[in-house]
């Protein structure tokens, strides 16, 4: 049974106090500016396999990350040991490290005037605490539903239910202190289907993640979807090598959108390692494409009230009807490109900021997936991509794929052991239809997409 927990409110204040002490200490060691991140969290993870508990993991953890600037030199450190001596040593080490690197003229904290002044409640936290038995029950029901859906589901890699909650506190030498709590609840089910004639196996999975426990779909519906996805892959064959239209389902279309996200990220751009270099204001995609990054979507999986440097998050238009309107930037990469931060600094505790999306999504069109598949006479419907064959510098794209061959507008048979290849610059322009089926299942989300033509390699 779910029960509510009482979380001591002192925690955020306690960390803010700790942060201010460490910042003061850094100043006495010669730091001209500094910022600090403290994160803690609790996780309970339950894995069930073929009806029995397979693994149970429980943990609490905490970590503190410090970044100091001595003039234009900087260094970053982190530790899980919050004792007084350990933190004193950390501050001293960080200042020594900063002294050893070269001056970087654009480095530094954002201006004090840029710090977030509002920290809205984005509804990211649910104080529901699930006990172990409840989580085991969810995982068991999800897996059982997969087995019950189709008798060809013969085995399982298991079902996993995770719950976690945590807090982030960010403070800097401008006097900014921000904090927020967040939680997540997820169920994934990974069944294996067997072809009774050949003995060939196929695995697939389905999952859902929510910040609120009450918003999770039923365990049964997740298990059933996972089973359908595994079973439909049975009997996969290779396709012949040819150039055809390719339809990406929302999961694989999301990976294309993630490639776009990488290409507009400030760090790749100033290092000249992106295929979208110097393209701001230019048409980079089909006019059907509009992409937003919205850091303040209520309850969003990528939402946060402030970014990794303490700037307010916001909704940025990245691509509007095919025209590249904005990059994703933090202060540093923005300065390198002569642009202001877009509030996209992402921060893992022990590292200096980088750039990351918040809720990065492609605005849906009007056609259903069925209608899009119906528009293809001879082509490919992709449901899985594997491998890392993407060259972000050139946009060259070549990945392993699996899915279904489309014949006269219908899914005819499953295909596997094929590759699809092209160049992302061209692929973005060749998007011919954008589906209506946008569902926020992660930080980067796309509806079904159809690309007019790609090279498929198989037999």
């Amino acid at each position: 049974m779910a029960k509510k927990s009482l979380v001591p409110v002192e925690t955020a204040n306690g960390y803010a106090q700790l942060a201010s002490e460490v910042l003061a200490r850094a100043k006495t060691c010669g730091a001209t500016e500094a910022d600090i991140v403290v994160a803690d969290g609790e996780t309970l993870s339950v894995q069930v396999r073929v009806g029995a508990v397979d693994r149970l993991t429980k943990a609490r953890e905490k970590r503190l990350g410090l970044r100091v600037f001595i003039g234009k030199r900087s260094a970053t450190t982190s530790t899980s040991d919050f004792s007084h001596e350990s933190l004193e040593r950390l501050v001293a080490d960080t200042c020594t490290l900063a002294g050893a690197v070269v001056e970087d003229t654009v480095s530094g904290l954002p201006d004090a005037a840029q710090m977030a002044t509002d920290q809205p409640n984005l509804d990211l936290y649910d104080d529901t605490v699930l006990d172990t038995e409840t989580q085991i029950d969810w995982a068991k029901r999800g897996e059982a539903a997969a087995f019950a859906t189709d008798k060809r589901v013969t085995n399982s890699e298991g079902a996993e239910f995770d719950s976690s909650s945590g807090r982030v506190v960010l403070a800097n030498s401008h006097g900014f202190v921000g904090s927020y709590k967040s939680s997540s609840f997820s169920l994934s089910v990974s069944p294996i289907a067997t072809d009774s004639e050949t003995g060939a196996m196929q695995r697939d999975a389905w999952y859902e993640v929510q910040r609120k426990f009450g918003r999770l779909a039923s365990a049964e519906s997740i298990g059933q979807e996972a089973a359908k996805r595994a079973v439909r892959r049975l009997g996969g064959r290779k396709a012949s090598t040819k150039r055809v239209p390719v339809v990406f389902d929302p999961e694989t279309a999301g990976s294309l959108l993630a490639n776009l996200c990488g290409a507009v990220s400030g760090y790749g751009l100033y290092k000249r390692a992106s295929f979208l270099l110097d393209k701001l204001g230019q048409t980079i995609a089909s006019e059907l494409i509009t992409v937003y990054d919205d850091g303040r979507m209520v309850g969003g999986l990528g939402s946060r009230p402030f970014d990794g440097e303490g700037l307010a998050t916001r909704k940025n238009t990245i691509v509007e009807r095919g025209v590249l309107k904005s990059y994703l930037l933090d202060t540093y990469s923005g300065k390198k490109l002569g642009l202001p931060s877009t509030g996209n600094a992402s921060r893992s505790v022990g590292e200096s900021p980088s750039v990351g999306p918040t809720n990065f999504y492609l605005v849906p069109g009007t056609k259903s997936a069925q209608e899009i598949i119906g528009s293809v006479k001879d082509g490919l419907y992709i449901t899985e991509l594997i491998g890392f064959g993407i060259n972000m510098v050139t946009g060259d794209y070549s990945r392993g794929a699996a899915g279904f061959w489309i014949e006269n507008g219908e899914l005819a048979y499953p295909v596997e052991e094929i590759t699809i290849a092209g160049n992302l610059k061209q692929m973005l322009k060749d998007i011919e239809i954008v589906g209506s089926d946008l569902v926020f299942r992660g930080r980067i989300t796309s509806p079904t997409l159809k690309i007019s033509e790609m090279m498929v390699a198989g037999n």
Partner: protein
Amino acid sequence: MSDLIQLSKFGVTEFEAQHALDRLNVRDVDYADLYFESRTSESVSMEEGIVKRAAKSISQGVGVRATAGEKTGFAYSDELTKKDLEIAADTARYIANSPKGDSPVPVPTQQRPTRDLYPMEQAKAEVATAERVALLNEIDAEARRYDPRIKNVLASFNTEYKVVAVATSDGALVADIQPLSRLQITCIAEEGDNRQVGSFGGGGRVAFEFYREGGRHLDYAREAAREAILNLSAVDAPAGVMPVVLSGGWPGILLHEAIGHGLEADFNRKKTSAFSSLVGKRVASDVCTIVDDGTLPSRRGSLNMDDEGTPTSCTTLIEKGILRGYITDKLNARLMGIPLTGNGRRENYQSVVLPRMTNTFMLAGESDPQDIIRSVKKGLYAVSFGGGQVDITNGKFVFSASEAYLIEDGQITKPVKGATLIGNGPEILTKVSMVGHDLKLDNGIGTCGKDGQSVAVGVGLPPIKIDEITVGGTRS
């Protein structure tokens, strides 16, 4: 390094460790262990000609585990007090809801690992940041000197110094110091609108001097620059099924993806691997013998002991084409009744033990590398690769070339753009028709991901010819 490490390094007494193991000593628990880890990671990185970033991270904690039948209970903590150990032990014990065991837990006896594959004085593992900065500066200069078209050099040097101790319910207490470092270089070349990338790197469980020995760091820099410049003239890769020759060394990632993961015991115990019922059967041509060897001195994938305290070993996976066995950790070896191979590994104290590869490679064959190329009328010669991935269940794997050439009438001709190669694990090695006599191990850059956990691995390969595999280019 196999200096005798005391638990006191972690602020814990042997008595406290035994006490925690005793709390795990309930009737259904088959095995329990405590994994203490202290890790210091440091990195310096450069771009645009300056070393801009330096970072250091320190973490310490304990992972507490109990296994009962197929079940694993696991908890971890970054606090190492007696009370935290007790809480973790009680959590891990949850999976075995049974009364106290009858036989007492033995007092752990301190043991040394049986070998010392990476002897290094601590002083040598700790190198002043200034020396690392100087190393990167020399690399930047060398890469730019190689060709003026090199417009940016991204280089990073990372080290990890890890002290681990494992106390087990079978009475062992064994510790190891595991140094690891890696130098990675990426060059970006530009010529008009044409921009290309090239990468190279290396490392291992080696001291800092390794990188300067014989100007090794400068060789790395020139290799990264050479690949970037070469790619400026690369033509579109072909698409379809064709013969492919892999050069020696890092292309051994083929073995890691195509067969290595499929032979990890957990997938086979659960019968979810495409290799599940193939022991004793032919899965490769008879020129293929493949091993996983964690005992090679100083290699990135090597360990004195695995993360359960078992000495690593050299395990024959495939012998002259016949599948011989799996790589195991304690849980899976026990449940399957097969030998323990010392492949129980974990990323850190926060993660569970899984059977993982160490250094996976194919033994040398008899063919002359030149003859291998000459035997191909029209195909691909692949020299370097980016990452790879495999679907364990259906056996389909991919790996992506970053430097490749066309072979036309037995001659290596034009460089081609990167392309993904895709095949089926249990099938692909049956198509290996020639194996070169010169085995090469990779330079020490591999990191393998499984279940969200990264561990350092090595691969190796003599040059081989695969009679047919699907190449995912754009040109028909």
